[in-house]
Structures are given as structure tokens and as C-alpha cells.
């Protein structure tokens, strides 16, 4: 019976038959070329369906769904602040202990890795349009330069973290009392910093490092995972005088960056994983930090 035949063949493809049933189907396939063709066609249709829906899981998850999963309407006021909040003070820059100047070494190394690169648009503006009599253009160029520089640095810091592996130097290990430790290091940061919880994405907060964004100290939050397909991720949060921008994708060599600015803060999510995955995480971070 055809229907019975199709059921057996589909179950065979799905690995749902027991040993006896499997032998029966294999004998049937051996004896009848038409059945083999039928099996091939059914296998092809299964592959087509899987392929047709494969990319959806890599799409960015809308913020409203993340909010719904957390039990809060996206637009509802007073969203729960699950992330840790740190109130940071800013002492004199020279007051930083030597141990905490490690970022300066990191910055130099990052520059060595990536250089201070101006994008094509920036180069065009710089070469042909920079005019002291045109403050607007100067401002745009300065903004573009700052943007490129800090993204270069964010990617450079990320590469340093990846290459260091388990020996990565962490200024604020997550294993210690995070409140006390983060307050200690972030005394040099001019803004509040929260630590998003990314456990739903399989990422564990390892600790924070002190870096530089737009010439000012910032926090680089380091997240790690055993899943090498995802790899470590970093989230750079710093103060910014630049206007707000929506999440924007950029790339430095093999490093993906998703960056945005909101309410005088600059954010960059950095990693080597799929951009769709980064979008999903960025949505969650934005929700948690109310960053967008």
C-alpha cells in the first residue's frame, strides 16, 4: 500500500524504525529501484524544508519578544532592572594605579593589529572636503574618525582577549564580589555601568577590563562560552559626546561589530559569531540596559 510504504520510508529516513523494520525496508529498497527513487525524493523534500527554515534561527530576535519573555511589556515603564548597576566615580586620570594601565598596553597592541583606519568615506572627506571654513564637515570628519578609531580599538581589544585565551588579564574577575570589585576598577569611569545577564545565550560573564572609548576610559565586559562556534564576546560600554545612532553593523577583518550610541553612551558588541546571533544578543542587551 502506497501510504503504508511512504510511512515506512519516511520513518526510515527519520531513524524511527526498529532493527527488524529497518531490515525489512532495506530489503525492499534492494529489490525495487522505484522504491529507491521514492526514498531519494522523500529525502530531498526533507532537506528542502530544513533548508528553507534554517536561517530563521539566525535572525535577530525582536526586542518585543525578549521583553515578553521577561514578562514585561516592551513599552511598560519600570522595567525590572536585573542587571547589576554600578555607580562610578571619576578620579584624576593620572591617579590610576599602574596595574590598571594595562589598557594602555592593550591599546598599543590593538593599534598594531588594526591600525587607526579611516573608512572609505572618511578618506574621501578627509582628502577632498576637509575645509577649515566648513565646521560642519570638520565635525563630521571628527565624528567619523572617532567612530572608526574606537571600533578599531574595540576589535583590537577583542582580538587580544581571544589570543590570550585562559591567560586573558581581567581587571574585575566575575568570580569575586562583583559589586565591590567593579566599583574599585570603575572609579575611573565617568558613567554608570551595568552588567547584562547573557546566560540565556549560553554566555558567562567572565569579568571586566578597562579600555578606552573616544579617548575616555570605558568598560569592556568579557563573556565566554564553551561553544567554539560562538566564541567569546565582548561588550564595550563607554561615555560619548556623539549623537545617538541606531545599531549598526561593521566589520574589522574577521571580527563582527554591532555598535550604537544612546543617551551619551557608546556600545559595541564584538565577536566572531554570526551577525544574526549578535543582533539577538544586542536586542537583549538593549532591553536590559535600556540602551535603545
Amino acid at each position, binding site marked *: 500500500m502506497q*501510504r503504508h510504504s*511512504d*510511512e515506512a*520510508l*519516511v*520513518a526510515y529516513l*527519520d531513524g*524511527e524504525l526498529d532493527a527488524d523494520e529497518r531490515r525489512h525496508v532495506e530489503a525492499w529498497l534492494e529489490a525495487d529501484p522505484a522504491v529507491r527513487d521514492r526514498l531519494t*525524493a*522523500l529525502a*530531498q*523534500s*526533507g532537506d*528542502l*524544508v*530544513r*533548508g*528553507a*527554515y534554517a*536561517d*530563521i*534561527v*539566525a*535572525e535577530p*530576535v*525582536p526586542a*518585543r*519578544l*525578549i521583553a*515578553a*519573555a*521577561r*514578562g514585561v511589556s516592551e513599552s511598560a515603564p519600570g522595567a525590572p532592572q*536585573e542587571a547589576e548597576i554600578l555607580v562610578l566615580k571619576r578620579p584624576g586620570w593620572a591617579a590610576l594605579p599602574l596595574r590598571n594601565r594595562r589598557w594602555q598596553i592593550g591599546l598599543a597592541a590593538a593599534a598594531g593589529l588594526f591600525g587607526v583606519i579611516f573608512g572609505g568615506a572618511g578618506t574621501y572627506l578627509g582628502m577632498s572636503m576637509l575645509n577649515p571654513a566648513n565646521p560642519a564637515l570638520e565635525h563630521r570628519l571628527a565624528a567619523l574618525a572617532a567612530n572608526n578609531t574606537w571600533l578599531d580599538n574595540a576589535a583590537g581589544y577583542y582580538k587580544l582577549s581571544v589570543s590570550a585565551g585562559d591567560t586573558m588579564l581581567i581587571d574585575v574577575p566575575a568570580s569575586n564580589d562583583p559589586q565591590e570589585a567593579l566599583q574599585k576598577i570603575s572609579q575611573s569611569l565617568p558613567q554608570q555601568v551595568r552588567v547584562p*545577564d547573557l*546566560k*540565556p*545565550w*549560553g554566555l558567562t560573564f567572565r569579568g571586566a577590563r578597562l579600555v578606552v572609548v573616544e579617548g575616555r576610559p570605558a568598560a569592556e565586559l568579557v563573556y565566554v562560552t564553551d561553544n567554539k562556534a560562538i566564541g567569546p564576546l565582548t561588550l564595550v560600554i563607554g561615555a560619548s559626546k556623539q549623537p545617538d545612532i541606531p545599531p549598526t553593523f561593521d566589520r574589522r577583518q574577521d571580527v563582527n561589530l554591532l555598535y550604537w550610541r544612546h543617551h551619551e553612551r557608546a556600545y559595541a558588541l564584538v565577536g566572531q559569531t554570526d551577525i544574526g546571533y549578535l543582533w*539577538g544578543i544586542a536586542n*537583549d542587551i538593549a532591553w536590559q540596559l535600556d540602551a535603545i
Partner: protein
Amino acid sequence: MSFRWKREEAPAGAAERADPASAGFSDQLIAVLPRLRRFARGLAGAPADADDLVQAACERALARAYQFEEGTRFDSWMFRIVQTIWIDQLRAREVRKEDGDVAEERLGSDAAVRRIEARLALAEVRQAVQLLPPDQRTVLMLVTVEGLSYKEAAVVADVPVGTIMSRLARARTALQRHLDAGGGIRRSGNNAAAQ
């Protein structure tokens, strides 16, 4: 059985609890969101409808978090919620078709649209999935796309394993028929080769 529904009533105060769900529960929910969106896309078709479906499922899951039994498969539990809401929506819209009642008239009803879609192989497959009856579509998504076993799919769909087998076989053969009838990947590939 991969998970069990708790039969007891909600604990006192559960409905009006101030904390809608633990952080751990929400974490599980967020982790499964990409797969829920894919499953919902297979059921509902349109991305916006699918996300509405997932959002409704999240809200229902949080409201009924007490029904989930720790140690059982969370994804299956959520698939069932999504499927239940979708079926309710279909019934409300009175568009649910009887099992085996395929909307043949929709096949090739618009030649111009079909020609465009023939160039988009993935979109064409998704369109063919949308032509399947809801019961078949559900099983196809659960087993073939989401990788659930027949037993797990049977629990989600609340039907015997034998029903899963028959629905799946009909879905796969119907899908193949739709793709062939609609020009399918094969013709699309031929066109591309000809060009």
C-alpha cells in the same frame, strides 16, 4: 514522553503573583525564542503573524509557568503552547481545513507571482509548506525542521505516535507534489541554468 503537564491547579496566588516568573524561567524562554520563531513561521507563514504568535506564547507560558515540570523538555512545552494558540487562532478565524483538504486552488492561481517565487527557492518551499493542512504542517515542522522524535512530537500534538507517522508521510508526499506542481526547485534550477 519528553515532558509531562502538571495536572494540579495553580498554586494560590499564582495568577496574581508580583514576580511573573523567575529569572531562570525567562532565561530558558529567551534561549528558545529563535526556535519558537522558526516553528511559528512554519505554522503561521507571515513573519509578523509568527512573532505575534510567539509573543502570545511567551505571555501564556509566564502566566502558566507553574505548569512546567522541571527536568522535562522546555522546548517541547513551548512548542505545544505555540501550537495550541495557533490552532485556537485558526478556529477563531474559521479557516482551519480538514486534514487532507489541501488548498489546491491556491496552487498556481497567480502565474506572475509564481514565476517570481520560482526564482526564490526557499520562499517557494515555505509557500508549499503553507499549503499543507495545519495538522500536517505542525508535524512536519516539529519532526523534520525542529528534530523532535515521533514520541516527542506526539506529546506536543497530543496524538498517538501512529498519527504522527501518517501525518508526516502525507505531509512529505504532499510537499513533494506541491513543489513539482508549482514548478518547484527543479524548474527554478533549470531556468537558472538556461539563463
